[in-house]
């Protein structure tokens, strides 16, 4: 990305600045639009109108909320562990924000093109759990504590099916670099991994059902990792008020919210990179047909963002359809269902790849 902007502007400072600020802007934008979209989607699903007072169609609702949040008094309870309490939201936010560094928005728009991007994303996103535990413990509130404990157990367990599916994909693709994975599923949707990858042959058709299973497993477990319904038990509002961030208010609370929506996009991005061709267009590029080369990265970014938002929409869709699971059932789903399926899937994909 640095290289791209350096070529474009010829200035070290501007290109460095853009590269550095790009993920942050992304997280903020995702949260702004995400909160708005969540409200609208839930409203439409429930035969309501949703926010419509601030600006046309209530478009500025989230901005108004952020302004309100900024003005709020930073109230803290007396018996809390001040240091941990203050660090926790930053840590949680940093965790979700850091993932954006490696997400390839297009072949050119990528913060840092590291070779182990997938591994990095998985590692960094599970970093959040430390922040959540800190928040829950330092709040000195029983609800927060219970929420944090649930969250720790949940995120740690769901790492395993995620990792297993990722492992299967890595075996199949032979690389950990997110941009390379995207590149492998070049234009046209039949080259996507969900449809058996780019190579054409018998294995492609054999792979399709298992890829589908892999996709479902990773989608469910990433859903759990970002604490969305039906796995939102750490913050189950009817049981634990707001879970680990019960005691937070103002901007600190907003940081938890930001990271939640940031995370949603991050995991959607990873799912779409792994299975749905990343930034690749399903129907080829307009830039290629017209012979305008500079258009291609923007087209790619468009497709990538579209895919990301589509998965966010599915997450919302699920949230407003389903009830939430209980703690032990959550573990049951993970250990008794997802992990066995993921293992079987791993083995079969491995065998087919070997053949």
């Amino acid at each position, binding site marked *: 990305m640095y290289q791209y902007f350096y070529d474009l502007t010829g200035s070290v400072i501007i290109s460095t600045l853009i590269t550095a600020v790009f993920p942050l802007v992304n997280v903020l934008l995702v949260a702004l639009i995400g909160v708005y979209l969540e409200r609208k*989607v839930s409203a*439409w699903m*429930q*035969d*309501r109108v949703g926010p419509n007072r601030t600006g046309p169609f209530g478009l500025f609702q989230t901005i108004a909320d952020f302004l309100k949040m900024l003005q709020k008094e930073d109230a803290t309870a007396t018996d809390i562990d001040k240091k941990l309490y203050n660090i926790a939201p930053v840590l949680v936010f940093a965790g979700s924000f850091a993932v954006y560094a490696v997400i390839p928005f297009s072949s050119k728009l990528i913060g840092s093109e590291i070779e182990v991007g997938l591994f990095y994303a998985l590692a960094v996103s599970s970093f959040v759990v430390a922040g959540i535990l800190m928040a829950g413990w330092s709040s000195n509130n029983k609800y927060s504590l219970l929420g944090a404990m649930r969250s720790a157990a949940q995120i740690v367990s769901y790492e395993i099916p995620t990792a297993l599916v990722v492992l299967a994909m890595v075996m199949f693709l032979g690389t950990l670099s997110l941009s390379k994975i995207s590149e492998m599923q070049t234009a046209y949707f039949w080259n996507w991994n969900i449809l058996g990858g780019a190579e054409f042959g018998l294995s492609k058709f054999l792979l399709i059902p298992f890829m589908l299973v892999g996709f479902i497993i990773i989608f469910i477990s990433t859903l759990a990792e970002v604490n969305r319904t039906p796995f939102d038990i750490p913050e189950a509002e009817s049981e634990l008020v707001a879970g680990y961030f019960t005691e937070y208010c103002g901007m600190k609370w907003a940081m938890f919210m930001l990271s939640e929506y940031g995370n949603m996009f991050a995991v959607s991005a990873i799912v779409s990179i792994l299975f749905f061709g990343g930034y690749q267009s399903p129907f080829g590029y307009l830039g290629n047909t017209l012979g305008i080369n500079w258009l291609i990265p923007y087209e790619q970014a468009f497709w990538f963002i579209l895919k990301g938002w589509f998965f966010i929409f599915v997450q919302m869709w*699920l949230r407003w*359809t*389903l009830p939430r699971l209980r703690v032990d059932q959550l573990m049951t789903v993970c250990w008794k*269902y997802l992990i066995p399926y993921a293992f079987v899937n791993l083995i079969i994909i491995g065998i087919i790849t070997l053949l």
Partner: protein
Amino acid sequence: MKEYLKNTWLGIYTILVGMKITFKHLFTPAVTIQYPEVKLKLPERERNRLYVNIDDCIGCDQCARACPVSCITVDTVKSVPGEDLGTTSNGKKKALWVTNFTIDFAKCCYCQLCVFPCPTECIYMTDVFEFATYERKDLVYQFSNLSPEEAEQKKINFANFQAEKEKQKAAAAAVPKPENPSQPSTN
């Protein structure tokens, strides 16, 4: 094993069924209305703020007695002969000055029990439901059209009249003579 697979299938299938329903609802129009701009037409029997048509009130106090929360206060003063209070719309002759008719809407429970006993149908429920105020005392509505001075005057009038009557009675007692008193019987 069969149970296990069945559970997996049921989980996925019922989730998909649910998703189908919510997806359909994405495209159904909203049932909510935009309240301050759009208002529902309230049915004619709507029970909201009470209104008293004081011109029709005869001060019979029946509404105040029917009220389970005692939010209606009616004070009356008898008229003196010669004063014309007019008639109610259904032709009843009024005989009492209603000096004070207040309803405390902070207490009112909108049960409509005060409406039925009214003989002149002067107290009734309207469809006004937006009357929030900043002060609780603003919810006490005064329906009497007499100013406090006038009300005071009426009381004095009646007291004077009463005193006059007493005097006459005393005089009549002192001088026993067959006299036909001109004042009407008690109002």
